[in-house]
């Protein structure tokens, strides 16, 4: 492949991973916007959803779409349950305390997954269903930009992610619950005084965020065709990085941050070294925060702990 083709290929690959980061980052940023908590268990929701979809699809034998839909509902329920059990009793206590609770939940879920499904990497699509695999890995050439190609699953990822993001911004902007969410992000106490059911709004935020994280988990599981208990760890860290990069609490910022992160990783992998790919995310984050301490689109700086 010639130079420009490699560049375009990496841009396409980076963009697809970027939208996945963006989907996870939205979950972090919405929760943070309202209750100022780094929901460390979010990466685990992403992982658990992929595993549930895997179980329903390759072991229980459900159709792929049905398995995915049920898994996403499960993700929402899991998110709401985590909030109810581990975060709600701690509302109002120092934020560091809630952070410890989040780390505890994350540890719990990681090891639960390891106990149920084992620590090794498993293919998402079992070998006997290789037609599906061939279908989603089908390669299409991209006209205009040399030899760069795009696969079916990459197209699906881009379309799904962008559609969901648009839907989400519509929900936040125009629906009643969306308005309640924005109100909560501004001032929790005042919102409660205005008669909004704050607990329900927060639960709803967790449900949406977790569902989006779950979608991301399934997309990545399809993309790499593998699922493993530690998959949520790095993805979660990077998505959180993306959220901070874009300015935490800001949904558009999270999307921008995710794409920026994915693309820079793709470029780093192609031109510097794939070994340092994981480090580049954090290096970019540090540089951006040094020059713009509230992130790219963020306006406010969070209160100290």
């Amino acid at each position, binding site marked *: 492949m010639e130079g420009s083709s490699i560049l375009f290929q990496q841009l396409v690959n980076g963009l697809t991973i970027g939208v996945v980061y963006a989907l996870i980052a939205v979950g972090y940023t919405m929760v943070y916007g309202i209750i100022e908590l780094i929901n460390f268990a979010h990466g685990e929701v992403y992982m658990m959803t992929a595993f549930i979809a895997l179980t329903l699809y390759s072991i229980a034998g459900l159709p792929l779409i049905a398995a995915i839909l049920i898994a996403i509902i499960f993700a929402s329920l899991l998110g709401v349950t985590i909030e109810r059990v581990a975060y709600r009793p701690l509302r109002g206590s120092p934020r560091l305390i809630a952070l410890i*609770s989040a780390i505890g939940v994350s540890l719990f879920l990681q090891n639960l997954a390891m106990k149920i499904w084992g620590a090794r990497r498993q293919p998402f699509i079992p070998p006997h269903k290789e037609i599906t695999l061939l279908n989603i890995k089908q390669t299409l050439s991209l006209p205009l930009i040399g030899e760069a190609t795009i696969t079916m699953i990459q197209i699906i990822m881009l379309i799904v992610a962008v559609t969901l993001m648009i839907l989400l911004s519509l929900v936040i902007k125009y629906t009643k619950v969306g308005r309640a969410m924005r109100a909560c992000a501004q001032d929790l106490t005042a919102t409660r005084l205005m008669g909004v059911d704050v607990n329900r709004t927060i639960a709803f935020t967790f449900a949406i965020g977790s569902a989006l994280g779950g979608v991301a988990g399934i997309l990545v599981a399809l993309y790499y065709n593998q699922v493993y208990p530690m998959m949520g760890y790095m993805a979660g860290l990077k998505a959180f990085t993306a959220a901070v990069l874009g300015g935490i609490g800001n949904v558009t910022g999270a999307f921008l941050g995710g794409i920026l992160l994915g693309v820079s990783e793709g470029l780093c992998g192609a031109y510097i070294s794939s070994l340092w790919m994981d*480090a580049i995310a*954090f290096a970019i984050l540090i540089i951006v*925060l040094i020059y713009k301490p509230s992130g790219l689109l963020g306006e406010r700086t969070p209160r100290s*702990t």
Partner: protein
Amino acid sequence: MPGFLIRRLDQLRKRPLFWGIWVACLIGITIFLTLVGMPIPYALVIFALAIVSILFSRAKYLPILIIILLAIMPWTSQDQYWLRVLITVGIYIMLALGLNVIIGFTGMLDLGYIAFFGIGAYTTALLTTHFHLSWWLCLLASIVVAAIFGVLRGLPTLRLSGDYLAIVTLGFGEIARMTFANWVGLTGGPMGIRDITPPSVFGFSFGFSAQWGYRLYYYLILVLLGLTVLTITNLRNSRLGRAWVAIREDETAAQTMGVNLSWNKTLAYAVGAAYGGAAGAFFASFNMFVSPNSFTFFESAIVLCMVVIGGIGSIPGVIIGASILAAFPEVLRFMSEYRYLIFGLIMVIMVIFKPRGILPER
């Protein structure tokens, strides 16, 4: 019988139910410890430590009693496995105390503290294997190098606060780990560095021997810990320590009172990192092997939990928190597959029921 002991016993007598439950719990824990395989003498010494701490909590010579009990502990049993566990607990206590300087005193959230532990460990590992330097020099070098990295990390992040600071420290921690893993020429990459020589005094090695077992290491970490507690307590009560607490309580007010924010924050990083580096130097020689796997984000999170669950800012609290959490994986070893699952669950339950920690700062 000294007066305070009489008063203490009197106190205990007034609330028999409360103290009865306490003592029953301690006896239960002791029996549990022996059931999971800890040699009975060790468990008894731990029980004695707890009782002594309760009875003599007001006495000036409480530290001396604790030191005596800890010093005779390794001679009560021949078991080396649990001695290793105790030494590991010691390393974690040191780390938690160092992190407490940053989080507990100065109030800056740090999610990448383990990087300093790693930097200390790699410094010692490299200096002993390549230059065959004495471990004592390596210890000094590790402390200095870790402190320098603490300053290097602190300077660009002075403008940040709260969770932005947290995520940047997390980023630095991950970059440090990736450097250990990827800079193969220097660090040996994922294979790590092995055959690190143990410390020695006049040719007398501290390493494992038939006669001494791991006892010399045990005394070494005990001395290091003693120095750590001593220096940190003094720092806490010094002008610098009071400046840190002022920053934690209210940055703006502290600045108005003439506290130099940048200088004091940077010093907090340097001091916290220095303890991490010292613990790393000990870890490298005790483990005789370092690899990037020992310095993951998980470790940072665990040390953070030790500080928070023990009681942020409180030195005895942090020591207790670190002892409990560091010993947990060993104590729960009998249910090997479930232990981290339960560990996570216990973390959630602990913060829900005791959000200020086991022994909060007064």
